[in-house]
């Protein structure tokens, strides 16, 4: 227990240290006389931009719109990935039928669908959620399939010899045995959701964090751009933390839990 505490606190301190070093370097660079604040705004400007955008309500609106898209896209994409991945990974017929399709679509970056989605559905909320869903689905489904294929045979045999039907083995053995892979898939999907969110908002949105970035570029508000980058980083970080909590709870049985 003591060893664990020392390890966690060392991890925490070193993590804080690396962030602090970057922070200090940034302050040092922006304070140099030859720095152009229009390109590299000082921290005070970034903070000021934050409060301006909070007061005007811009940030709330943008954050709300973006988070809605993230949650919808993530939920739809990963749910579809879970269902499809389980079926493909467990039932050979479905695998032979669907796996080539997934493999063929996998290398296509989700952003490549943006033009066709805009043509079909317009610059609507649905389009953005759809792009995020596709991104989440693609990265997640591969992990779910891998998880289902890596279920140790001895668990399957043990369940079968105790009288489990093929479906019961699927439900009571394959899915739980695959959870480590499935959770990893979900976590990667969350990262993919953020990436695609910003990209899709840069191209086609009237609100959202990506839109704020675009607006900052258009009016040369580098402080606003920097502020949004920090906000995105913080949100993604907090979500990942929350996710780790869920992971730790679901994986308490596992030797490899974090």
């Amino acid at each position, binding site marked *: 227990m003591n060893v664990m505490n020392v390890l966690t606190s060392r991890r925490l301190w070193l993590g804080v240290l690396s962030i602090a070093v970057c922070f200090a370097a940034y302050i040092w660079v922006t304070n140099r006389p030859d720095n152009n604040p229009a390109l590299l705004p000082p921290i005070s400007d970034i903070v000021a931009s934050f409060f301006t955008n909070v007061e005007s309500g811009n940030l709330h609106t943008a954050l709300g719109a973006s988070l809605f898209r993230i949650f919808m896209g993530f939920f739809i994409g990963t749910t579809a990935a879970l269902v499809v991945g389980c079926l493909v990974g467990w039932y050979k017929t479905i695998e032979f039928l669907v796996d080539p399709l997934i493999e063929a679509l996998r290398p296509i970056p989700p952003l490549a669908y943006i033009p066709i989605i805009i043509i079909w559905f317009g610059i609507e909320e649905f389009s953005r959620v759809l792009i995020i869903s596709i991104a989440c689905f693609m990265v997640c489904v591969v992990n779910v399939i891998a998880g289902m294929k890596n279920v*140790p045979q*001895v*668990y399957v*045999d*043990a*369940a*079968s*010899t*105790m*009288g*489990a039907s093929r479906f*019961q083995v699927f439900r*009571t*053995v394959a899915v*739980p*045995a695959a*959870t480590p892979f499935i959770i990893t898939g979900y976590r990667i999907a969350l990262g993919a959701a953020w990436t695609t969110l910003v990209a899709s908002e840069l191209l086609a949105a009237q609100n959202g964090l990506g839109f704020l970035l675009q607006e900052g570029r258009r009016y040369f508000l580098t402080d606003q751009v920097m502020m949004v980058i920090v906000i995105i980083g913080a949100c993604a970080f907090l979500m990942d933390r929350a996710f780790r909590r869920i992971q730790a709870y679901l994986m*308490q*049985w*596992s*030797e490899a839990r974090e």
Partner: protein
Amino acid sequence: MPEIKVDNLTHTFGKGGPDALTVLDNIDLTFESGSFNSIIGTSGCGKSTLLKMMAGLFEPSDGEMTLDGNIIQGTDRRRGMVFQQDAVFPWMTVAKNISYGPRLRGVPKSEQAEIEAKWTEMVGLKGFENRWPRELSGGMRKRVDIGRVYANDPDVLLMDEPFGALDAQTKERMQSDLLETWGQSKKTVVFVTHDIEEAIFLSDKIVVLSSRPGRVHHIEEVNLPRPRTNDMRLTDEFLEIKRRLWAMLDH
């Protein structure tokens, strides 16, 4: 009453192909109901293959096996199996592992709890009901495995080198405890091992398989009195059987 018959069984991997390999050749065996039987042989003699076929995990290429006259086909809870590898489900607590089989059949909650209590105690894991398998030693996990199969109440118990990975002392305790559990319900057991002493200590009958392809080389009836105790391992009778079997496996 469960009586297992193996009738003229031959198994060839990749039958008909260029790399066809016959692992079991013309096996005829009968295991009496309620008896404890072992199959021994050097590695690669097909003893595990034979056991997995009895479990119904795969089918022989020729010949058949019957349980009470019914042809064995596919897995069935009547034929429970304990595996060489650790098969305890790590995502279930000890108690939930024990009651896994009954839960599959939709046994009511109260009865599940009784089964969990009975079999965790029987295999010596009382107090560990709510532990995760990762918190247990290899020997304790094997106890969970055995308890889980017993709790499912099969007619036949198939055991594939269950104690192979355990240290010598743990192994001897597990053997004694297994005999005690077996003595209370007298299920038909088929136990595969390469450990001659283990086979003698446990069994009524020992089948010696020769290697490549596996054929029935010898059948040894062990008439040591029951209950068996550890000091019997050093009696002349025990050692004489051991010497005889050892010579056979050494050929």
